[in-house]
């Protein structure tokens, strides 16, 4: 079960140049091996918090602390990031897209090809390695994006509403596959979503955020055991967790006031 802390946000605030206060006094600790969902209404700064963890955005207040030394046994770098859109290079094949992180770090070509193949195999797209993103469905493109994020075997996988644009059937399937990959790779995931059901199904901990300014409102532990599957989705236990999360979200929205 979750053990040593991996990364922590301490008193993180973010004011955009336009003057918008996106985050204020955000405290959040991510432990190794956790699956944390950031749940909140739009405008609560959950994506901003994720970008700050990724180092894509600098906090204007507070600090991001990496609490564990870089794990030498892992061959890749620390972070993987999956955006809301698949964000693939349209001019490059699936294989080249997944290769990108290794390519940018000048990894040896032979080794890289193997790792790309493994990553594509993990998301079930081996047969489409030479296809272009245009030729794939939305769900398949998102799989490519996940394969690319996992190809470096990151310690921390950051996902910014990755399945928001997908239909429910595809989303459920990807949820299951994501859980499977998370368990197989024993990585840590922070998953931003505005879906109560998705957050409860996936995560071991739901962090509910409130808006204006963005902050942690409350946390819920989802102590149902993994692996989770269709049975969990229809269980009374799942329904109970969802109800608690919904109530917490409703309170968070009320606490955030009108936009």
């Amino acid at each position, binding site marked *: 079960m979750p053990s040593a802390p991996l990364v922590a946000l301490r008193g993180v605030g973010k004011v955009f140049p336009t003057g918008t206060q996106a985050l204020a006094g955000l405290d959040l600790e991510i432990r190794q091996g956790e699956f944390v969902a950031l749940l909140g209404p739009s405008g609560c700064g959950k994506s901003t918090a994720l970008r700050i963890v990724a180092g*894509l955005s600098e906090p204007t207040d507070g600090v991001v602390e990496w609490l564990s030394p870089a794990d030498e046994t892992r061959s890749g770098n620390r972070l993987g990031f999956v955006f809301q859109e698949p964000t693939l290079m349209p001019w490059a094949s699936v294989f080249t897209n997944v290769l990108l992180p290794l390519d*940018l770090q000048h990894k040896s070509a032979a080794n890289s090809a193997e790792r790309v193949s493994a990553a594509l195999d993990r998301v079930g797209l081996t047969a489409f390695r030479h296809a272009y*993103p245009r030729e794939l469905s939305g*769900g398949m493109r998102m799989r490519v994006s996940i394969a690319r994020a996992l190809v470096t075997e990151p310690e921390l996988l950051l996902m910014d509403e990755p399945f928001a644009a997908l239909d429910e059937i595809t989303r459920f399937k990807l949820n299951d596959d994501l859980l499977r990959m998370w368990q197989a790779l024993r990585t840590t995931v922070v998953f931003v979503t505005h879906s109560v059901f998705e957050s409860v199904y996936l995560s071991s901990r739901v962090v509910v955020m409130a808006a204006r300014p963005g902050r942690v409102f409350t946390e819920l532990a989802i102590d149902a055991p993994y692996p989770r599957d269709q049975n969990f989705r229809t269980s009374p236990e799942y329904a109970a967790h969802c109800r608690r999360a919904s109530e917490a979200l409703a309170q968070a929205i009320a606490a955030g006031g009108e936009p």
Partner: protein
Amino acid sequence: MSDLPPAHSRESGNPLPQYQQRTGPPLSRGTTEAHIRPPPTSLHERRDRALRIALPIAVLALGLLIWEMAVRIEDVPPYVLPAPGLILQTLVADWALLSNSLLVTLVTTLEGFLLAAAGGVGIAVLFNQSRLVEYSLYPYAVILQVTPVVAVAPLLLIYLPQQAAVLACAWIVAFFPVLANATLGLNSVDRNLADLFSLYGASRGQVLWRLKLPSALPYILGGLRIAGGLSLIGAVVAEIAAGAAGAGSGLAYRIAESGYRLNIPRMFAALLLLSAAGIVIFYLLSLVNYLALRHWHESALRPER
């Protein structure tokens, strides 16, 4: 895994099954019948394509016929208006002279085009890499563009050897669309992709070669398509301007020279060759555009339906 690729997937060499799957008749029609029936759009498409070729040709034929008849019936002398037949005869008779001139103009055009392509893309990359350089030089690029090249050509002919002046004119008119489009393209990079590159610690060079230039490629090719026609215009303008000085041998010079000699059929023949050159240049560049973008860019993809 379970999610199906859309109909334009490369796996579907034959679009028929998918077509039937999406918009085919209700199942009661029977699947065998549905499968041998060709998609109704293909016939319509084929007729549409045939019309797109046949109609302009018909218009051309009709126009030429009227022209020929008018000249014959009114007995217009060839130094006023030569008939199409005579122009064609002149084209054949003067082929040695005209084809040499065509070659000269084409070489100038090609050189001007290549310089414009290299200059336009090069300057755009420079602007993209350094804001200070952009601020310093962009206004002059605009000035170069907005000053009519016809007015600049005589000056260039004073200071440069004729061939260099002609080339400079071709470059001046052709480089700006490449520069403007390439600049737009380099600034149109997907922000998330740019974030991804920085997340993985990409160097400036990697961002330029792996991200910015490929993103800009459709824009650059668009600019080149305009530049192709413009470099021909630039070359022609300079040749005409130089024509008075008399040492040229390009097609435009032939037009000017034939004008002085009232050899109107040859003027038309040379003009015909210039148009043909322009058309060929345009279609060659369109082909390059298509070949480079066909796998991935919206502009080069055929509609699904």
